[in-house]
């Protein structure tokens, strides 16, 4: 391939042991060779655009750690949802619980005692 003076080649190493990177590699391999470069370029630019939007939104909120003070995290596929015996065992009738979740008490602008603190570090005291 011939590059013009304005073009730069970027080398990226992806690791199949990293889940998301493995997904990217799998997807890339399904794309015809002639379209792989363009697909990767689009992926990079889309990702950068999303990162810019997230940064802008974070700056607009009053200095909190992220949007609305919530911790954004890749969800677990099997979240710790709780089922009643009736649900999990298929026997009898039993109560079900309405799990009205409250937002994280870690509000935007709330003081954070040190950057290394985890969002729910206050729960450490439960252990004693």
């Amino acid at each position, binding site marked *: 391939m011939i590059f013009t003076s304005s073009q730069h080649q970027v080398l990226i190493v992806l690791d199949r*042991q990293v889940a998301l990177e493995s997904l990217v590699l799998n997807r890339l391999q399904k794309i015809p060779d002639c379209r792989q470069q363009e697909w990767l370029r689009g992926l990079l630019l889309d990702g950068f655009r999303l990162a810019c939007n997230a940064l802008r939104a974070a700056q607009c909120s009053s200095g909190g750690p992220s949007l609305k003070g919530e911790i954004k995290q890749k969800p677990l*596929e099997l979240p710790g949802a709780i089922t009643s015996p009736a649900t999990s065992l298929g026997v009898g009738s039993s109560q079900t619980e309405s799990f009205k979740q409250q937002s994280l008490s870690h509000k935007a602008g709330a003081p954070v005692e040190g950057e290394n603190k985890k969002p729910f570090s206050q729960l450490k005291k439960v252990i004693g």
Partner: protein
Amino acid sequence: MNQLSEEKLPDYNESSNKDAKEPTMDIVHLGLDDGYACTKIALADGRLLSIPSRARIGHAWVTWIRDGEQRIFEYETEGSVYSVGAVDGEPTHFEGYTTSAMNRVIVQHAFQQAGLSGRSLHVVSGLPVSAFYNHNGNRRASAINRKIRSLKIDTRSLGELSAPPPARVAFHDVIPEALAAWYDYVIVTNETGTSLDQKRVSAPIAIVDIGGRTTDYVVVQDQGVVHGSSGSLDRGLLNVKTQVTNSIQDAFDLTSISELRISAALETETIRLHGKDHDVSELIHIARQELVERLYSETRRLLGQGAELEHILFVGGGSAALAADIASWFPNQLIAAHPAFANARGMLKYLQFVSDETESS
């Protein structure tokens, strides 16, 4: 048999051994519930893995014609060799298992099965409540530190050039096992993010963790452990296995029987001896009933009728295996989703959202 909940990344495991020869600096976070019967792992990408806690000291002396069919793996730690996998396992329910070489090789095998060869790990694991706290409710610092140090001792796979590099534990914290399930209960993760369920945090709740060797009880109220109602009972699913082993030996006049055959008998309720299948469902039923009655009396002793508790949450592999037997113990009881993994999930959440990884552990 491994239980690996992984659907989205079919190529992940196939390529892991090949790629693992080039260790990366990426740190993997995981919750590790290294129980006496099964060793469970919860990974941050959502995968859950369970392997039997099964190993025996010494080489297996088996040559596998095809690597893909290898079912016994050998590891070395502190100069001793262990075989892990489809072996006739030695008992794990002995004092000190949690810091033993046998524990270490089984955990390393679980890491390898999860495709973590060569990776640097941050881990939270657990100890039974009675091993974590003394009678005054203070931490047993020496026992906790022994466990923290144990997993950092070098453990390597044996094999020639094909031996995968070990996964290494760079950070390790230990919490009470049943309390891990409480963290899983109050820290809620879904598609929109992670949040703390304040209603659950403030409600008094009892966790009953029915495991392999022990059953743990933890009552949490006002964000503190109520030690008077918490503790460990030295009974679990492995008691059923032991009793069934003895009963089968007595019934069929056998001097010994392999652990693998007993495990199969517990699953199928039949055992094949002298070329014939024999129904052992009654023997299993009797052993289960004895365990259930013992658990019931201890649960009532510690929790009473549970009327002042918002919920009694059952977790652990035993809660799944004995689900029909414990279904109506309390009107306000719950059984966690995938209860065998509740502790491992909670340990992972503790690591991700609570623990201070800058502390030297």
